[in-house]
């Protein structure tokens, strides 16, 4: 029973928020324009979260997102010379490179992947700030992509493909097995290193796509590109009830539930006109409440 409550809480939290904001914002919440806003604002984190779920499923944390987004955006801009289509392709290519970097550090360096992620976080931010200090990196054409239907289509395709890979292919299934018991996975004839690397590659692809979405929102690569992306995604995934240690309990729906919860919470409080000083406090309380009920503690049982 307790287990069931735990699993339902993230969905219930989202529903409660939707009902609450529908009733308390004079209908402003459920206007077509506002729903468009929520989808567009949530898209970047949602796309990045889909890839991150693969990495978390095999029990790694990815702190590189923001830095990797900045790094791949800057490199893609410099190599594409501001051509939009080339930028998109290159952003994905460099995103994959960032993922592979984390993978190599983790697999050959035998350290947790977030070490490599932290490196990328600082390096990416540094490169972006240096590059943006010396030149203006604008892609004005990207304004065409800043459109609700484009964003919706991208999110639908990324989540759909992610859902398929995660639940119905070896790549997804092995991530969960590795997260549950890496040794047993290796001894079942699965190359753990290879499948971990694949997870990082997937995370790199979604990161590249997220970078493109970010570009079409900001039209320029700046020193602040992708700022806080990793915290947004990790917070959202926790709200979505993701299993922190990965494994079989990992569900890709945590990405969509969590990201929507996170952005609807933001949106609703702004619609309330709440004092910005309190918004963060309310967010913190909501986060604590949801996560403390929904998080899977089975691994902590011994301590309790």
């Amino acid at each position, binding site marked *: 029973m307790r287990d069931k409550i735990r699993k339902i809480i993230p969905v219930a939290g989202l529903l409660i928020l939707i009902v609450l904001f529908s009733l308390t914002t004079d209908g402003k919440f459920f206007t077509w324009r506002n729903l468009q806003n929520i989808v567009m604002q949530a898209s970047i984190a949602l796309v990045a979260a889909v890839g991150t779920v693969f990495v978390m499923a095999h029990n790694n944390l990815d702190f590189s997102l923001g830095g990797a987004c900045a790094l791949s955006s800057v490199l893609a801009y410099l190599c594409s010379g501001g051509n939009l289509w080339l930028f998109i392709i290159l952003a994905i290519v460099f995103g994959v490179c960032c993922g592979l970097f984390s993978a190599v550090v983790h697999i050959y360096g035998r350290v947790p992947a977030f070490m490599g992620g932290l490196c990328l976080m600082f390096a990416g931010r540094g490169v972006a700030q240096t590059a943006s200090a010396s030149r203006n990196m604008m892609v004005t054409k990207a304004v065409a992509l800043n459109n609700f239907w484009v964003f919706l289509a991208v999110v639908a395709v990324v989540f759909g493909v992610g859902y398929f890979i995660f639940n119905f*292919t*070896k790549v997804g299934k092995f991530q969960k097995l590795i997260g549950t018991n890496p040794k047993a996975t290796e001894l*079942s*004839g*699965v190359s753990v290193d290879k499948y971990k690397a694949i997870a990082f590659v997937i995370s790199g692809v979604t990161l590249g796509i997220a970078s493109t979405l970010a570009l079409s929102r900001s039209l320029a690569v700046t020193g602040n590109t992708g700022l806080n992306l990793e915290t947004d995604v990790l917070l959202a995934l926790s709200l979505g009830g993701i299993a922190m240690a990965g494994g*079989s309990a990992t569900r890709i729906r945590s990405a969509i539930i969590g990201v929507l919860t996170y952005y609807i919470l933001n949106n609703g409080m702004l619609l309330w006109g709440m004092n910005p000083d309190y918004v963060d406090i309310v967010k913190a309380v909501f986060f604590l409440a949801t996560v403390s009920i929904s998080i899977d503690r089975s691994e902590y049982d011994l301590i309790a």
Partner: protein
Amino acid sequence: MAETILKAEHMFKEFGATKAVTDVTIELRQGTVLGLVGENGSGKSTLSSMIAGVYPPTKGQMTYMGAAYKPGSVLEARKAGIQYLTQEQGTIDGMTVAENMFLGEEDSFGKGGMVNMRRLIARAKEILNENGLAHVDPSQPIEKYSFEDRKMIETARSLSKQPDILIIDETTTALSKKGVERIYEIIAEQKAKGTAILIISHDLSEVQHLCDEVMILRDGVFIDLLHGDDINPDNMRQKMIGREFEGSYYRADFECTHGDEVVLSAKHLTVDGAFRDISFDLHKGEILGFGGLSDCGMHEVLKTVFGAIKPTHGSVTLTEGGIKIHNTTTSVKHKIAYIPKDRDKESLFQPTSIKDNIVASSLDKIRKWIYISPRAERKMANEQAKIMEVKMQSVMQMAKDLSGGNKQKVVIAKWLANDSRIFIMDCPTRGIDVGVKAKIYRLMEDFKKQGISVLMVSEEMMELIGMADRIITMKDGRQTGEFMRSESLSEADIIQKII
């Protein structure tokens, strides 16, 4: 008859819908050794845990030294004079030996929360010396010592204050011969002092040797209480399972039967620090056993053959196609199965469904391009679970909720699903009950008939002699002998080569 110390009457214990113990009455008497036997999941550990205060019974009452007894915790039971030794580690890493020994009793070494460490250590040293553990320094952190030493420290602790009741729950499974002998000594000493002793064990000859009376449980229900000559392995085994064995326990034949064709050959395998220059051929339909002490390198040999350890020298080659094995992916692709010794840590995905456990190695068989249909997965899992007769509600049940024997069945099902042609088995019957053991032995015989080869390590000599076509003995990482299957082969022959 000796005086009753503790009586637990009409005990019930339910975990959710599971009835672990149903209406069992047990009596512990002064100076009497009572054995508690049953298959895995029969409720033995649950019953003893209630007596030791691990958790309260759902229903039932206990009388201890004539008064009602309701322990709130293990510490409370311990203070009352009931000591409980388990198969798991009962010490806490990060604390010193002395602190571990007097956990919960620090108060008697000081006042107002301050503990007199010097007195604590001095008393600990005294107890260690009395128990033949003079080499242990009580001021050192406990994790410095081996599992066996820690187990013995724990034992010494439980005897530091003369207990009235001593419960020993499968403690000997994890110990070396020396440790086991020490435990037997302790049992004899305590018996002489008049302590009531409760022993839980899978080793039926051990039970026969130690116990004055034996209680048999099956599915949480009391079956029988045996005395005197009734206490013999065959009788106990029969009562535990509830029916007579069909045919024999081990293989009935004494012929070395297998094909001439070599399916796998290992040449000059060496892994630094584990074993040196091991060579052998595995034939079609052969059961090849490795025997030795646990640290002789035989477990590592199996892992190396499977590709999980990279050999320093030498190679493992499959005859078919001349494939060299260098990692686990290659070996599984070429239909080799590996069943590790440490089931929970190395072969089972515990918080994962039985289905996912079974299909883990065979996804290539059911995938269409990259798509794996959940229906095909369930079908495969159901088929294999049925063959292995896994006791479960459905294949969607979590593997961690199964008993040890059923877990092992799931592991074997995983490899059957992949149509494995070579089975590498490291102590395949370790810690599982006779019913499942017999099932595994029948399966190995089936393998022989189908031309499937088995490479097996066992720490039970009788199992090796009973099942293997050929036995290679090892000692300190080297091959010391080879025995062909024969009726005259005895444990002594093998032991001579491994010690």
